[in-house]
């Protein structure tokens, strides 16, 4: 049965999407991140959802744009930034979507508005997970907690979280698979949301467009900048080099000086709390033993 609201918990943030019109949300699990059957008392963001016919572009004072036309993903263009009143916005224009022309999410401190431009105004039920809107929303919200997204794989091994990052094709998924074969659990092998907390830096999985999961998290004990190698090596990195090498694999939308500096400071803060290593590995389980022997 469809519902007028859905509540999700992503990276420790609780977000409620609430229809203020006739639209209803399909009874999907929000790729596994829906909060089901529990009374939600503390929400971080309460988002109203309604169809609309137009949005005011003149209210945007700064923006960052990504254009995904001509890529392997369905054609779309996204824009995020700030409005004159300080609230944040995300707009996704779709060029290959059967349901939406565009969608716009405006985020205040605790309230939000999700406007849907539907191709068919008679549509009564929608899937609340809209890609890439949700992922961009997660990046904006965790930024408020000095967190950020990073292309990486993360595993949890006896309570120890290890993060592996590099450009695509280097071996993040291979590394995750090696750990899984040795009894560890994979938090995610593509993208994680890192959020600093009182007891450490926590890596969280986020909803992915093509499969369902459940919320998973691990407190990081080590960050590994990986490369392929004929022999295994693990070399500690410090200072600016560690932060900047790690930063190159993080997701950033530096549309203002403040945003650019904050992102750099957030990444630096993480690398100051979690040891960073340069790691070269051959694709077998020896590397798992080598990392375990670090006793981080």
């Amino acid at each position, binding site marked *: 049965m469809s519902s007028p609201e859905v509540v999700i918990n992503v990276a420790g943030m609780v977000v409620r999407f609430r229809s203020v019109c006739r639209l209803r949300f399909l009874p999907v699990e929000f790729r596994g991140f829906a909060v089901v059957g529990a009374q939600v008392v503390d929400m971080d963001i309460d988002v109203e959802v309604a169809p609309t016919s137009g949005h005011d572009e003149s209210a945007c004072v700064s923006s*960052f744009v*990504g254009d995904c036309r001509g890529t392997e993903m369905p054609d779309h263009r996204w824009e995020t930034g700030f409005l004159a009143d300080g609230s944040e916005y995300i707009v996704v224009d779709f060029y290959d979507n059967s349901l939406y022309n565009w969608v716009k999410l405006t985020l205040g401190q605790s309230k939000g508005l999700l406007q849907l431009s539907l191709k068919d105004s008679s549509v009564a039920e929608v899937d609340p997970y809209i890609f890439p809107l949700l992922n961009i929303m997660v990046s904006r919200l965790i930024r408020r907690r000095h967190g950020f997204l990073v292309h990486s794989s993360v595993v949890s091994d006896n309570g120890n979280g290890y993060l592996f990052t590099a450009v695509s094709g280097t071996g993040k998924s291979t590394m995750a698979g090696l750990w899984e074969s040795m009894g560890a659990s994979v938090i995610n092998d593509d993208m994680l949301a890192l959020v600093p907390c009182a007891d450490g830096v926590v890596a969280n999985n986020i909803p992915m467009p093509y499969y369902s999961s459940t919320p998973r998290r691990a407190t990081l004990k080590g960050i590994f900048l990986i490369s392929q190698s004929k022999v295994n090596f693990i070399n500690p990195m410090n*200072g600016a080099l560690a932060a900047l090498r790690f930063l190159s694999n993080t997701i950033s939308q530096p549309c203002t000086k403040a945003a650019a500096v904050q992102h750099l400071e957030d990444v630096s803060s993480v690398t100051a709390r979690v040891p960073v290593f340069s790691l070269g590995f051959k694709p077998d389980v020896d590397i798992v033993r080598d990392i375990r022997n670090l006793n981080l």
Partner: protein
Amino acid sequence: MQKLVSNNNYALSTVAGDTVLVPVSDSVNTLCNLFVLNELAAFIFSRIESGRDVADIIADVVAEYDVDQQRADADVNEFVNGLVDKGFFHFE
């Protein structure tokens, strides 16, 4: 003499004691690398931002470091031209 003018598309920050030049961008397509400034680069950059012209900066470098005029001239101009090539400054 041409004046060096900021394009206001960067921010400076400090990471682990190093000065980092962070680009500000409005698009994925125009994101570029950030740069770690060594001591001399940070010295020159601070003087650029305070409005000193290139000739005065060269004199500052000669006075501050144990280098001759020719060496200072080459280093400062190389750095300044690099900033212009990367789009952080332009000449008026």
